[in-house]
């Protein structure tokens, strides 16, 4: 479903990860671990197609991936339903998609509330619920459990589990244990890019123009 071979990714023209290869089968999740700054976000942005890899290949086209970044992309003056409704129209999943997303992250009671009146955890739930209406097979999460309480983490794990059971896949960068039996853990520390002096990729400051 997603095959990554010999991938190197760079941030700000400096390689952060290199030689990364993994395979993700339908129904499986991959949990990325590594210390802060080790390149988790850069890797996820590369997978999502927001930036090109320095080297290596990603087998799945970016159109099969749905990406949830650190930020939730919510509009404060729109209600919960309007926020989800916008994305459901963009992804073409319609009102049924909104209803499913509201149920899956337990947002029914907040449906008419403007996003600016939600708590941090509720905003996060809304941001995560968006993934359920993308209709894309591979979900990519960047630190999804930030500001979530235990009950909401369980909701999130259940959402991912349901997605995996339907033959989807997920890549999740997180520091906590989600309790997903289907998940394999990939530690990114061994893939830290070497300095150019040690044979690593030289800095590519003109990457914007390649």
């Amino acid at each position, binding site marked *: 479903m997603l095959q990554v071979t010999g991938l190197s990714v760079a941030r700000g023209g400096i390689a952060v990860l290199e030689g990364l290869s993994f395979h993700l089968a339908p129904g499986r999740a991959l949990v990325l671990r590594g210390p802060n700054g080790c390149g988790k976000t850069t890797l996820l*942005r590369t997978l*999502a*197609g*927001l*930036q090109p890899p320095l080297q290596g290949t990603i087998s799945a086209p*970016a*159109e099969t*991936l*749905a*990406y949830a*970044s*650190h*930020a*939730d*992309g*919510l*509009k*404060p*003056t*729109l209600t919960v339903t*309007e926020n989800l409704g*916008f*994305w459901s*129209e*963009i*992804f*073409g999943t319609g009102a049924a998609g909104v209803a499913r997303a509201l149920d899956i992250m337990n947002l029914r009671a907040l449906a008419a509330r403007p996003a600016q009146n939600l708590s941090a955890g509720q905003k996060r739930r809304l941001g995560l619920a*968006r993934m359920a209406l993308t209709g894309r097979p591979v979900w990519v999460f960047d630190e999804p459990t930030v500001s979530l309480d235990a009950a909401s983490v369980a909701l999130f794990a259940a959402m991912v589990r349901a997605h995996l059971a339907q033959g989807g896949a997920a890549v999740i960068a997180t520091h906590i244990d989600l309790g997903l039996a289907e998940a394999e853990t990939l530690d990114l520390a061994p893939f830290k890019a070497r300095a150019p002096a040690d044979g690593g990729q030289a800095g590519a400051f003109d*990457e*914007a123009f390649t």
Partner: protein
Amino acid sequence: MRALLIRDLRLAFRAGGGFGLGLGFFLILCVLIPLGVGPEGDRLASIAPGILWVGALLACLLSLDRIFALDWEDGSLDLLATAPLPLEGAVAMKALAHWGVTGLPLVLAAPVLGVLLHLPQAAQGGLVLSLLLGTPALSVIGAFGAALTVGLRRGGLLMSLLVLPLYMPTLIFGAEVVRRSAEGMATGTPLLLLAGITAGSIAALPFAAAAALRINLR
């Protein structure tokens, strides 16, 4: 694409969305000019075409950095770039929404404000027509400038410097249409040039702006 247009218009009309910002600025300018220049009708009438067009241009410039900056800050630009919607289409829709919120109200308000500046009756048609043809170019060129500077802290000044030279042809031909119609001359040539600038901008700049956004999102 329609969803994005509707969302942007809805956001603009909600509290703090910035609707009326450009219009308010235009109104203030046109009220203040007669107070500053003096009430002589002839003098006002001779500068009115230029003032109205400069006012429209600055009013447009005022809200340009909001086109992408808000979406960039809250992360929705990343999400839009990974959505099935082509980024070129998203840029075009956001420019259209900007025009609907800023340019179109100016077109509608201009005849009233022209009266304040003693604009001759004969020039009213030329004023409305030139703004109607010219303001879409201001929004599209502005969207390009906003795309180039998205992600820069306080990028507004840099954006103004980038965008103002590109605005000059629109300003020159737009004001020329109004001046010529005030003096009863033929306005065909400047109108065609104005329409040509707008058509060219709409055709080319969404692609340039989308390319700039892709680079800025890396």
